[in-house]
Structure formats: structure tokens, C-alpha cells
């Protein structure tokens, strides 16, 4: 009887040990992915299909095809539309897209990931390399969206404080892409509302007296006054950059747009006189994340993994990182230009940029976007 029980125990223990070993093995297996196998399978799959917010994906895709012989079919659409389409397609059981690049913080964190339509995947080769805070969900790129001015009219940054944009002098002269249709634009307003002390301190520094509030805090107060100062909202960052930088203007505006628009070739083909504002307090803008996510039930999952890994490397990120203030979340990838050069990247590398911009907080964005956009729309003149 006793022996029998013992025997049972032994079996149970053995069983548990085997299970444990198996489980451990699978964890180890998950961490140590077999990249030879992934590459082989990816080549068998032959292609990757992506939805992306940036047209540069085509460039990165060409580089990927050159290296692995795997084709990338990329479609550039608005980020809100990516969310919409992925949801529709997954609900309809259509599996055509493998990978998305999106900037839609709410769509990613509130809609697609919770529903299981997309998932974050960090290649085992980059587990500890990618900057902390950007690993899950995986952000592969941080891009600056900052204030810029017309360098033909102004020799140097014409303002020194964000609060200056709420003054009479800049009435009707602040341009941005419409927060009502651009999700990241509103995320910056959320960030400002979340930092009332910094905004209040800056007010006192600039105007020399403490702020008188008509709203709950100095962040809200800034949004209200800015909205009342007749801002002009355009369709896109590109349009904003052109409106600010066109030559032959008097009383040219200040714009908030993707810092990448300062790429020298772009300025030349568009004939723009455009420089980023430096030394505006408390910040000159924000860094917005671009997520790379795997679509559920993708037809080419291994090729998608391989392409994700490729985008985290120099050769893949290059399509973007040649832009000023566009950084890979892999700190080993070089950014352009590494050292500050006149007008192009007067601030420096990612660490320097982090000091003059605010990152976007995805939780706050999800939580407060509606309130902030309502508030902005209500006061807008």
C-alpha cells in the first residue's frame, strides 16, 4: 500500500519534472529563436504585406528585398484608416496583411491589441537592445514633431516660449495639422494638460507674473488660449511645412510639423526656407512613436518577423533615420547627422532631443484624448 503510494508519488513527481523541463524548454526556445529556420521559412513565404503611415516603407522594402529576396508590398494610408481596416478585415476573416506601421496610439493600445487583432513582437536578437519603454508594444521609430519657422523672414527662432503663441502678435499665425483628424496632434495637447506645473512655471518666467486661471490648471489654460488665438489647421504636416516655409512671405507663421520635413533635398525641391525652432521653453514639440505590430493570422508570419528584425537594424531604419530628429529605438543605429550641423539638426542625438521634447504617454492619451479634443474644439476661434 505504502509502496504503491510512493510509486504514484514518484510518477507524479517525474511527470511534474518532465512538464517543468518541457515548459522551461519552450521558454528557452521562445527566447532563443532559431533565426536560420525563420529566414528559411520567410524565404519560402516569399513576401510581406504591410499597411503603413509612411511612404518610406517602400524604400525599406526595397532594401529588404535586396538582402533577402523577399518582396514587401506596402500600402501607405492614414493611421486612423489602418485601425479601421484591420478591425474590418479581422472581423471579416480576411487575412492578407502581415504587418502594420501605425502612429495611432489609441487605435493600437485601445482597439487593436486588446481585441487580439495585432500583437507586439520583439525579435530575440533585440531583447535587451531596444530602449526601455518601447519594447511592448514595439516602437521602432521615434519622430520629432516640433515648431518651425520661416528662415527667410527670421534670422533666428522668433519665439522663446510656447506661451508666446497665445499672444496677440501670433494671432492667426500658428499652423498645425488638424487635431480633429490627426490623432498624434491631440496627444501632444494631452501631454501639456498633464504637465501643469511646468506650464505654470514657464508662464511666470516669460510674463514675469503668476498665471491667473480660468480653467482647472495651466495646461488647460494654455490649450484654451491657444485655441482662442485663431490657429490655422491644415490637412497634413507637409502642407503645414510648406505654408510656413514658402519664400516671399511677410508675417510668416510658426508651424508644428514633423521635423523630418527639414531634409535638405526636400527643402530644395519644394523651395522652402524652413528651420526648426530651438530654445523654445519648456519644449519645442514632442516625439511621437511609430509602432510595428504583427497582424493576427498573417499569411506570411515568418517573413513579417524577419522584416521586423530588419527594421530594427541600420539597413531597415535608414529609410527614416536620414531625416533630422528621426531616431530608431535601437540606439546602435546611427542617426542623421550624428553631429549638429547648421540648420539641419541643431540639437544633436536622441538624448539631446529628449531634453527639448516631451514623449507621448500612451495611457494618458487613451484616457484623456476625448476631453482634450472637446475642450480644444469648444474654445477654438
Amino acid at each position, binding site marked *: 500500500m505504502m509502496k504503491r503510494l510512493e510509486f504514484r508519488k514518484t510518477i507524479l513527481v517525474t511527470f511534474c519534472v518532465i512538464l517543468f523541463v518541457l515548459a522551461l524548454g519552450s521558454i528557452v526556445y521562445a527566447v532563443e529563436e532559431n533565426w536560420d529556420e525563420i529566414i528559411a521559412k520567410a524565404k519560402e513565404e516569399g513576401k510581406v504585406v504591410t499597411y503603413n503611415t509612411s*511612404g518610406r516603407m*517602400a524604400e525599406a522594402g526595397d532594401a529588404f528585398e535586396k538582402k533577402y529576396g523577399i518582396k514587401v*508590398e506596402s*500600402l*501607405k494610408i*492614414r493611421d*486612423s*484608416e489602418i485601425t*479601421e481596416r484591420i*478591425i*474590418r*478585415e479581422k*472581423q*471579416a*476573416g*480576411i487575412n*492578407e496583411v502581415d504587418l502594420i506601421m501605425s502612429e495611432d496610439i*489609441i*487605435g493600437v493600445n*485601445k*482597439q487593436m491589441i486588446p*481585441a487580439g487583432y495585432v500583437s507586439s513582437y520583439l525579435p530575440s536578437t533585440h531583447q535587451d537592445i531596444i530602449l526601455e519603454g518601447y519594447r511592448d508594444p514595439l516602437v521602432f521609430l521615434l519622430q520629432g514633431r516640433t515648431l518651425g519657422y520661416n528662415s527667410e523672414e527670421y534670422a533666428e527662432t522668433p519665439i522663446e516660449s510656447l506661451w508666446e503663441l497665445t499672444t496677440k502678435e501670433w494671432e*492667426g*499665425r500658428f*499652423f498645425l495639422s*488638424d487635431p*480633429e*483628424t490627426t*490623432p498624434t496632434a*491631440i496627444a501632444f495637447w494631452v501631454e501639456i494638460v498633464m504637465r501643469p506645473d511646468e506650464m505654470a512655471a514657464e508662464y511666470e518666467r516669460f510674463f514675469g507674473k503668476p498665471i491667473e486661471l480660468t480653467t482647472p490648471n495651466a495646461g488647460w489654460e494654455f490649450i484654451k488660449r491657444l485655441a482662442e488665438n*485663431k490657429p*490655422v*489647421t*491644415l*490637412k*497634413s504636416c*507637409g*502642407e503645414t511645412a*510648406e*505654408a*510656413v516655409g*514658402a*519664400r*516671399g*512671405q511677410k*508675417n*510668416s*507663421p510658426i508651424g508644428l510639423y514633423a521635423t523630418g520635413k527639414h531634409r535638405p*533635398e526636400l527643402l530644395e*525641391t*519644394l*523651395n522652402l526656407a524652413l528651420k526648426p525652432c530651438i530654445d523654445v521653453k519648456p519644449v519645442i514639440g514632442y516625439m511621437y512613436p511609430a509602432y510595428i505590430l504583427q497582424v493576427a493570422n498573417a499569411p506570411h508570419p515568418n517573413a513579417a518577423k524577419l522584416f521586423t528584425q530588419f527594421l530594427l537594424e541600420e539597413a531597415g531604419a535608414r529609410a527614416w533615420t536620414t531625416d533630422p530628429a528621426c531616431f530608431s529605438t535601437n540606439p546602435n543605429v546611427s542617426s542623421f547627422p550624428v553631429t549638429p550641423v547648421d540648420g539641419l539638426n541643431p540639437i544633436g542625438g536622441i538624448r539631446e532631443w529628449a531634453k527639448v521634447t516631451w514623449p507621448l504617454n500612451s495611457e494618458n492619451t*487613451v*484616457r484623456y484624448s*476625448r476631453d482634450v479634443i*472637446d475642450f480644444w*474644439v*469648444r474654445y*477654438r*476661434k
Partner: protein
Amino acid sequence: MKFQQREVEFLFLERNWNRVRRIIANPPLTLSIVLLILLIYLVIAPLFSMVESALTLSDRDSIYVVGEQVGDFTNYYLKRTFVGNMSDILFYKPLRNTLMVNFTMSILALFIGSILAWLVVRTDLLFKRIIANLAIIPYVLPSWTLALAWITVFKNRRLGGVSGILEYLGINLPDWISFGPVAIIIVMALHYYAFSFLLIGSALRSLDPTLEEAALVLGANRRVTIRRIIFALITPAIFSAWLLTISRGIGTFAAPCLLGTPVNYHLLSTKLYSNLLTGSPGVSYIIAVVMIALSSLFIFLNQRIIGKRKSYVTVTGKAFQPKLVALKKWRYLVTSLVIIFLILVVFLPIFVLGIETVMKVKGNYSFSNFTLHSWLGKSDPNIAYGDPGILRNPYVLGALWNSIKLGVSVAFFCGISGLLIGYTVVRLRGSKLSTILDQISFIPYLIPSIAFGAIYLSLFAQPRGFIPSLYGTFTLLILVTTVKNLPFATRAGISGMMQLGHEIEEAGIIAGASWFTRMRRLIFPLQSNNITSGMQLPFITAMRELSLLVILITPKTRLLTTVTFKYTDYNNYSMANAVLLLNIFVILAIMYLLRKFTGSDLAKGLGGQ
């Protein structure tokens, strides 16, 4: 006893069976039932789905509504739109703007259209044919063409960037000219006056001059004749034109978006769009329902007001040569004014867009800045992200092919369904079924395009019954565009069938021809001219449709309009305009060919005579 009961049952069954047989034997009735089921599925179901979405909590909003789950029934959107502290901005102010803009715009359009129509039909104006042909071109152009041209000419400093041509010449323009309601009203009126021109023109043409003469003989002076005879007779046409203009205007998106949004001037259509994109979809569906209700209200009023007079329209139809009013010494002046007007609204916009396609750098009008890159250039990584000129660009040429395919298929299906619906409506005239068919087929006209596209996406993205998922297929594009254009097609079909006596078909019946033979050998050939006229408008709208389709397009099913949209998104206006011009050219060429070889007339496509 039991046996008897069975016999009664049998008789009852037989009577029912006879009734069924009679229905089957009556093709118009069978056809009308089939059509009704189809229309309920394609028109009424989307409407219900829209209302359902407006009352269902979406995942994006679930965080802001405490205690309710995604997919729950909710009155959150209703409260937000109508009573919340956002209601004024989300709804009431855009509503006021929409009403103001559309009333003014439709009256202006009516004014321009009727004057042009009168000049062309009833006076001895010079170059009538050419003028008549040119006058409808603004309607054929995609609606944002004029808006873009307006910006190029009238843009002032308010929006920064490269200044407009007038500002470039040193003329300072106030904000209210460059952007906002005035600009929107003018641009929309210049687009929609074609409705009034075509409808009032054909009403004037079919006006029996003996009535005027009778009035003159009875001693009425010219003014009284115009007021009591001509106006009275063409009132229905004026009202239909006004109705078409205003209900179409309410759903217009491109011009208000380009000319209003930058300066914070919103209409219902632009609010619908922004809410669909990043706000609450529920709010946009409520706005859409309100827009539909508004348009329906105008139609109801229209029917109330003209009610009995409607019968006047069918009084004539015979060809008369009306006596032309001599413009005398004004003849040359009026002709030149009309021509200047047409140059301003037809040639100038096309020219302005054309210039931008051959400029390397915006705003530099010197010859050294000339380039044909947008049209013929080879791929250059530094220009336009390496896209080659549109005429050697497989992406654009593929889109061109798709657009033509869509236009032709939609025209074909609209022509057929318009004829079939027209046939059943006229043959069953007086019955409830006829009225219902007539009314349902008009509903798509009232649904704003953007909302219609979104609803079709949600309805047909998933497999439903025996219909597989249509997401990303060309079929879906054809389906949605056909249904959206059904109102035009049925109007043309009904007015065509009205003119066709029943005797012809009866002769066929007596000769023993089956229903299919009668349709094939009698109705179709006799109606072919009407069918081609009815096809023109669906063809044109399909070729220039953007807001309806933008959400349904995938790379495989790209169209010229969505390629234009893509290039404007890249801010590459020279390529965008080049594609737009290519699109305009193809539309005009095909219209010209159709006209030349079939003698079809656009006015008939609007239901005019």
C-alpha cells in the same frame, strides 16, 4: 365530413396556387417584387445599419462611458450630439452653417442656371450649341477642381505658404473672400448650376408656344405672360432643380473641406468626416441621419408645393419651334458676357491646374521653372519619391483602366436597373408597389456619400448569407456606385417609359411574344436612346467619385480619383493635378463619343424631357 373538409382545403390551396400563378404570369409584378427585395437589401438595410451604429457603443468610446460595454446599446451619441455641452459645436452650429450655405448656394445656382437656360433656349444668342455644351462641364469636373482653382487664384495670407495669383499681383484680399462661407457658396453654385440649366432648359424647350400666343391674343402683356404662363409652366422644373441642388449640396464634402476647415468653418459634412476619422463614429451616423432627414424634408415640401401642378409637365412633349426673343443690340454684349463667364468657370480652373503640373517649384511662374516631369518624366528618387511621370507610371495607368472599368460597369448596371425599375413603376402605376419602388430607389440620393461608403464597408466586409465577403473586391465598388446612382437611372427610366405607350407591348403580347422577347425586341430597342442618356450621368459620377469610395479602395482596386487623393496626401499637387486632368480628359472624351454616336443627352439623365 372529413372528406368535405379536405376538399375545401384543396379548393383553398388551388385558389392560392392560381393567385401565385397569376403573379408569376404577370412579369411586371414578379419583377417588381424581385426588385423590391433587392432594393430593401441594398438601400433600406444600410439605413438601418446606420441607425444601429448610432446606438451602439464603439470600442474607441467605451473608455469614456462608465458602466457600458463595447457593443452595448447606448444613448451616449444621441446625448453628445443633441444635448451635451459639445452639441452646439458638433451639431447645431454646423447645421446652421449647412442650411445657410445650401439655401444661398442653391438660389445662386438656380439663378445662374435658369438665366443661361433661358438665353440658350429662348433667345437668339450666338454660338448656342457650343455654349450649351460648355455650360455643363463644371458639373462634369470633380467637385474639388473648382475649389482648388479658387485657392490658387484667391488665396491670401491667412493660410501662409505660396500666395494666390491675385495676391501675387499685389491685390490684398480680405479673409472672407479667400476662405469660408462666401467662397464655399460660390464654388458650390458654380458646380451645381448645371442641374438648373439642364432641367429648366428642357422644360423651356418643351413649352408649348401656343399657350404664350394665346395669352398675348387675350391681351396679356409680356410681363404678365412671363409670370402667369412661362413661370407657371416651368415651376415644376424650377422646383425639381432646386430640390436636386439642395439635397446634393447638403452632402457635399470636398469644397467645404478645402475652403472651410482651415479657418474653422464647419458644415455637417465636414463634421461627419472628422467624427468618422478620429471622433465617435456614432456621432457621424447621427449627423448622417439628420442630413438624410433634411433632404427628405425638402423633397416632401417640394411635393407639397407643386403637388397638382406636376401634371403640367406632361402636357407637351411634341416638338415646337418656339419664337425666339430677339436680344437686338444686346445680342453681342450678352453673348460675350456668357462666354467670359464660361471661360472663368470652365477654362480658367483647368488652365490653373494645368500650370501647376508643369512647374518644378510652386509659385515660380517663369519659364525656367518649366518641366514635363509630372507627365513624362522617368523615375528620379529626388522628385516625388521616385514616382515616374503619370503617362509612364504603371500605377496611374492601372488606375485609369480601373476607373474606366468602373464607369462602364456602373453605367451598364444603372442603365439596366433604371430601365427595369422604370418599366415596373410605369406599368404598375397607381399601385402601392409602384410608389414604394419609386420612393426607395430615390433614397440613395439623400444619403451622404461618405456615410454611404462607410455603411457599405461595415455591411459587406463580412460574409452575409449566400453573399461572400466583398471587402477589397471590385464588385463592391461597382455595387455601391450603382446603388448610389440608382436615383438618376430610375428617373431616366421612368420618364422614358412614360413616353412609351402600352399598345406596343400589347401588340407583342397578341403576336405571342414572351415577356423576355418583348423586353429584348421591343422595350430595349425603343428605349436605347433613353438608356444611353440615363447611363451618362452614372458614368460621369463613377469616374469622378471620391468620397463614396475612398474608404473601400485597396491598392488593387485603385482609381484615378483615389490616386489624385494619394498625391494630395503626399502634398504633391503637380502629380495630383496631372492625374486630375487626365481624368477630366477621359470623361470629356467618352462623353463626346457617346453624344456623337448615340445622340444621347445629359438632361434626360436627370429626368428632364
